[in-house]
């Protein structure tokens, strides 16, 4: 199915957020390479590829693809929670507005939109189930 054709509004929004999110993950991961820590690129690299692959079939979203997106979003949320705990523990200011937008609001929005985007496969009508063989 071509991109965009037949997408619901939720799938459309989900796709928009995921594209931005995947690119940001990739770019922030590249920082580690600049600092000479290539091993740290592994997780963001995998997450970027995972999201990009998921975006290709956002109009259908098979189970494995949904699972992949959920893993990445929960990783971002858990990291944000750890960052918040660290900030509180070290008696610092809480998270900055941009951090809240990308690390808290975006993953929660994606998880919510993902739930709303599930399009169940079209079930045959009841009479077809009974008389389907004829």
């Amino acid at each position, binding site marked *: 199915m*071509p*991109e*965009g*054709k037949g*997408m619901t*509004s*939720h799938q*459309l*929004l989900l*796709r*928009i*957020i995921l*594209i*931005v999110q995947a*690119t*940001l*993950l*990739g*770019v*922030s*991961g590249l*920082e*580690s390479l*600049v*600092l*000479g*820590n290539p*091993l*740290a*690129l*592994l*997780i*963001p690299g995998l*997450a970027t590829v995972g999201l990009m692959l998921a*975006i290709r079939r956002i109009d259908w979203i098979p189970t494995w693809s949904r699972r992949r997106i959920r893993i*990445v979003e929960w*990783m*971002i949320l858990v*990291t944000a929670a*750890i*960052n918040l705990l*660290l*900030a509180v523990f*070290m*008696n*610092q*200011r809480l998270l*900055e*507005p*941009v*951090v*809240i*937008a*990308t*690390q808290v609001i975006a993953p929660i929005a994606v998880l919510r939109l993902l739930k709303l985007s599930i399009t169940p496969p079209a079930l045959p009508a009841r009479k077809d189930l009974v008389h389907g063989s004829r």
Partner: protein
Amino acid sequence: MVPVDQYLISPLYRTIDEHQTAAAFLLISALVFWWARKARPDTRRGHLYESFGQLGPSPKTAVAAMAFSSVAHFGLVFGHEPNGLTLGYLATAAAMGYGIRVVMTGGRWRRWSAGLLGGSLAAFAFATVGGTAPDQIAMLTKLVELTGLAAALSPMPGVRLARVGTASLVIVTAALSISSWAGAFSSGGGHHHGDTPPPAVALPHGEDRNPTDSELLAADEFHRRVVEELAPYRDAAVAAEAGYKIGKITTLDFHADNPSFKNDGRIMDPAHPETLVYAAGPDGPVLLGAMFQMDELGDTGPAIGGPLTVWHAHDHVCISFTGITGAVSPLGACSLGSVAIPITNEMIHVFVLDGAPDRFGELSDDWIKQAIGF
């Protein structure tokens, strides 16, 4: 006082004074939008809200982004002295307002939204590459504009156009992130009072003044003692035997920690520096100097040489199980798998290499390369 307020940090991680008005305008606008929800549909206010509600998800996202951008730019006009830049902010606010009108009245929403939001993002990228440091309000506005642009570009009708739209979006996002880094680093630098700190460097607030004679003498004496005590460590093998984690030195500022000297109660002891700094030279490691650290978070280092010996901390540092992975990016993230450390203990570098231009601050890579014979 919150510990981070003891320090001056890069504008990238805070809201600068000139942008406080824009932040207030954005908050007020959010309240006004919430208030408009309750208006009766037969009023002008109610009609506007209803028209917005009837838009599809993509034009709605684009309109919301343009509205956010318009309010933010309008707020910036009041935070700055009148000049060419404020005129630019005013023009951007007006253009975004016009764009909203076009979309709401059924005009070519995709073309207008992409043009205006893309133009604003491009102007920002040029400004930051030119040396303007972005702050939190700027980055939040750009993040919202980016989302609006994403709505305008995705999905375009037709497979080929859709691919072009997605590719453009990826390029714009990457360019926005990289140009913001460039702006933050080019406008910041130095580790002394009066300098704008680069990202992830926190400097204590202090007066930009010349050292007194006694401070100069104290700094000279301390430096002399450090040079004397560090002499054996010019041989990295001796440092390794003393407990410094030498490992493989491949960079120009390799920091070798000695865990047994950390939290040992000795402050700024020339005989027991917490860290040694080496550069990978053409003929092996070259000792650049030492780094002294305070034991506790929030403790202020003794500035024995006054403005010559300014201690610093690091803020918004990202770490993972593989070590330091960078600083919190302009768009708000450490690389996935890393967590952000808000602030570190205070530290100071003392460089012992002959002719070091800044004995208690930072050395540029170019100077190090020249000094060690590259």
